[in-house]
């Protein structure tokens, strides 16, 4: 069964360092999402891509976070410099939807857990 692949599963870094997460969505899925989930809370959307274009990054802290999906397939989320408050699970999801998360299902990866010391 096709899955959303994410790496690394776990990352420990010191504050002020740079960190990057990678996501490979299910083949053929046009829409890719990056969510941040703080322990005990629901996922919060950071950025949504439709193919290679950003359709929503209104909640992305652009002073330190960046995301790209250059060829409309896999994606990278970068944080530089990392802060203590960035400790969270970073979830990638994909859907076949054409630009809007209608009644279609979001398929999530296992996530990348970040700890900033």
């Amino acid at each position, binding site marked *: 069964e096709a899955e959303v692949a994410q790496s690394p599963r776990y990352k420990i870094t010191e504050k002020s360092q740079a960190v990057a997460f990678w996501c490979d969505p299910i083949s053929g899925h046009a829409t890719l999402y990056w969510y941040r989930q703080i322990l005990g809370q629901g996922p919060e959307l950071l950025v949504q891509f439709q193919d290679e274009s950003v359709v929503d990054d209104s909640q992305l802290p652009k002073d330190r976070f960046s995301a790209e999906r250059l060829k409309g397939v896999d994606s990278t989320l970068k944080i530089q410099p990392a802060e203590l408050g960035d400790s969270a699970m970073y979830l990638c999801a994909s859907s076949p939807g054409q*630009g809007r998360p209608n009644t279609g299902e979001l398929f999530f990866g*296992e996530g990348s857990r970040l700890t900033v010391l």
Partner: protein
Amino acid sequence: TQLLEQSPQFLSIQEGENLTVYCNSSSVFSSLQWYRQEPGEGPVLLVTVVTGGEVKKLKRLTFQFGDARKDSSLHITAAQPGDTGLYLCAGERDYKLSFGAGTTVTVRA
């Protein structure tokens, strides 16, 4: 402030008991999804409800969408330890999907 409020935040019950989880908002949603998330994993979709008043059943799970499409509930009958997890509701509004904070359900054997 969360667009979707889930209650209770935590729920611990004995195997065989019933439970209900609520998802409420003052906003109207085009559709509402329920996900279950196990520790260290990503959320997995359980159901999507679209029509006001809609009721969907998935084995021992019953999902209801409020008539005004502002709220939803999830009822589990005869809960089993395998039902343990974080239950998240997510509402679609203005082409965006927003998640609630979730209800952590623990079913004791």
